[in-house]
């Protein structure tokens, strides 16, 4: 990884770069969660964020789709400054409605699934395309059925989420995110709330997505998944990136003591 890029306005300088985070800072009161984080994600790449809880991985992820507003720094996704509008060389803060439009291109899968409990599985997946993108309901339903079949839930279409296991709920959540045809998928500890025997089915779907070329940023503690699927692994600690690179390097031969002790704790 090279030194942080310091050009004031990025635009679409590098075509293969989808996400570029520059000097991102975030604090809650006196607690500094992110202390100037840089991150680059190329198109089609799977980036896994590793680190102990409290390292700032989830916060960084939530800043990328502006669920949290960063206190400093910039986040560009596909040449668009998240949370801002670029005009006359300045970044103008966007109102919530403008941010919503930016988020439509960025899917997110949550630790606790967050399916809409008052809607059926099919309606959960159809909701975004119909309400946000204005896709005709019939068309959206056809595609939703396709997606649900892909995640192996074709027969659960008319069921309410509370009838599903955690693994099934998470797969619906992935289908819901995919229905928006996102450029980027964010996974915030997608298997941490699952019973151990259900982790595999969710990771299988994610691996499949990665093979198909989906750009993904994944916060997880599944080291095996990181080793096998990630193109790039970022190890964070104390709100900074400690070490990053291909999985063989970061997981296989970590350079920093903090990375080593973390890996030792996780894999034991």
């Amino acid at each position, binding site marked *: 990884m090279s030194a942080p890029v310091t050009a004031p306005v990025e635009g679409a300088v590098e075509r293969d770069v989808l996400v570029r985070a520059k000097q991102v800072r975030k604090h809650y009161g006196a607690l500094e969660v992110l202390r100037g984080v840089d991150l680059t994600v190329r198109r089609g790449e799977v980036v896994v964020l590793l680190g102990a809880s409290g390292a700032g991985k989830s916060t960084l992820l939530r800043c990328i789709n502006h669920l949290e507003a960063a206190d400093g720094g910039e986040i560009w996704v596909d040449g668009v400054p998240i949370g801002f509008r670029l005009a006359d060389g300045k970044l103008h803060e966007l109102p*919530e409605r403008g941010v919503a439009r930016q988020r439509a291109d960025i899917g997110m899968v949550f630790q606790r699934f967050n399916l809409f409990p008052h809607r059926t599985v099919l309606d959960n997946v159809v909701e975004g395309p119909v309400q*946000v993108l204005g896709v005709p309901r019939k068309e959206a339903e056809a595609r939703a059925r396709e997606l649900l079949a892909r995640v192996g839930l074709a027969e659960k279409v008319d069921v309410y989420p509370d009838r599903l296991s955690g693994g099934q709920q998470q797969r619906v959540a992935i289908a819901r995110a995919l229905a928006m045809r996102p450029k980027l998928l964010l996974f915030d500890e997608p298997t941490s709330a699952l019973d151990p025997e259900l982790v595999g089915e969710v990771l299988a779907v994610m691996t499949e997505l990665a093979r198909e070329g989906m750009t993904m940023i994944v916060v997880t503690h599944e080291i095996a998944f990181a080793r096998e699927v990630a193109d790039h692994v970022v190890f964070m600690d104390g709100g900074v990136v400690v070490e990053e690179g291909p999985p063989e390097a970061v997981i296989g031969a970590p350079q920093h003591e903090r990375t080593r002790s973390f890996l030792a704790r996780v894999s034991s």
Partner: protein
Amino acid sequence: MADPGATAVGLRPADAELLPQVRIKRWGRWVAAVLVAAVLVLLLVAVSRGDIDYGSVPDLLTQQVILEGLVNTIVLAVVAQGGAIVLGTVVALMRTSTNPVLRAVSWLYVWVFRGLPVLLQILLWYNIALVFPTISIPVPFTGSYLVDQPANALMTGFLAALLGLGLNESAYMAEIVRAGLTSVDRGQTEAAKSIGMGPRKVLTRVVLPQAMRVIIPPTGNDFINMLKGTSIASVIGFTELIHAANNLSSRSLAVMETLLAVAVWYMVVVSVANVGQYFLERHYGAAHRDPSAGIWSRIGGSLKVPPFVRGQR
């Protein structure tokens, strides 16, 4: 380890070896039933010996004045509650907004309209002519008026009661709706945002429908209170049920008979409201519905249980 059956771990006695079990004799139920029956009999005897003409009650039910009072009671309660739900929702949204000015204003609103007694509020509105003899609301830049009338003509008993009851209730509704909004998990808002929903869609498609499960039971409670609370409007001469009953009995002198007739109407109206609430709750609890129950058993069920118990399910 005196139990002869449990001689070894993992070994269970065959059925034939099971000992007979003696159930608790629930004497208390029989005693209570006898006592209650005795009290009921005594009450019935007392009531039947009273100086009252029960036979006239059914006729009184359908007296012109009483029916007029019934309609007025229902109209006043429905309009006041409906307005309160709309206003209360607006105030609750202000209260939960990020705008500090709106938050402060909504707090003040609830403080004032919840703090004053309803009767006082109704009297203040009814007597507003003493302060503002004419009420004029100009339409800006046109020179014409939306309202331009003497306050005495404008402030009828109905309007004063509507404002007093409705504004008071809107403060309570604001708190009910706020409780509903905050009861919805933050993850729901985040999920809605993550699929690109703007603030309005997040509210109307995701948060409010889920908040309804929390909002409806206390709102049903309040509406039933409102139906009965309209009786306060009798003090300013609005012909709702109580005032109608007083009108009638001051001529016929059948005071208790008329009041009983009115009592019957209140119970009927409140029971209908109960059933309505039950079906509203069913609608918003669709994800948790038991589809096996038939419509009549559901109506019956709706009358059996008090509203808040049902809301907790």
